């Protein structure tokens, strides 16, 4: 299960598991992001290539507008996945 909410500073807060079964819900939400946005991963336990694909599509779209996603509080496992994907070179990870 994946929960997507807005935090107190308008950051996007992801919680749970971002797997292929969550793609429709996530696609709908992320397609509505049109400006530079912070994504808080503190409560996200898991991500698969399905989730990575949505983040990549969003980052490409925002990049065309000169902005992008900023990812914070990324756990070690997910940080490894970003590294193995080369995504640590195309996302700002704090």
């Amino acid at each position, binding site marked *: 299960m994946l929960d997507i909410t807005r935090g107190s500073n308008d950051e996007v807060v992801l919680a749970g*598991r971002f797997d*292929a079964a969550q793609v429709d819900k996530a696609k709908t939400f992320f397609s509505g992001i049109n400006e530079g946005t912070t994504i808080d991963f503190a409560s996200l336990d898991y991500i*698969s290539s399905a989730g990575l*694909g949505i983040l990549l599509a969003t980052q*490409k779209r925002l*990049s065309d507008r000169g902005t992008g996603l900023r990812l914070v509080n990324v756990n070690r496992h997910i940080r490894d996945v970003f590294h*193995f*994907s*080369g995504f640590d070179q195309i996302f700002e990870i704090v």
Partner: protein
Amino acid sequence: MTEMSARFRRDIEALPEVFDLAAQFLSSQQLDSELRFAVDFALEEVFTNFVKYNPGGVSDIGVSLRIEDDQLKLVLTDFDSPRFDPNSDAPVVDINKPLAERKPGGLGVHLVKTMMDRVEYGHEERTSTITLYKRLRGTCST
């Protein structure tokens, strides 16, 4: 029990049940929870590829987890599928490409190969079997 197996309906919505089987097995073997991310990741990528790239398939998908020679062995079986060897037929992914040149596709197989120690593929009488190995040395919690 050093093996657990089940068949799952050919549906992405069955993923939580696949994850439940993996969690039960890892817990029954007292395996370190550190393994869970990689195991779930590998099972999901192979399972979803079976579903997505064999849209005409009607059979269930088999999943088994077992311990064999200090290795965790994951076996996924599609009982009615064309041949697709992830070791030779998957697109090559260049992880150093800049954002503008990145395209979706192939990343899941690349990551499974990175996170697992070995990936084997078999195809016989329209049955595809993907076997994934992960060494267990130093991962037991006891």
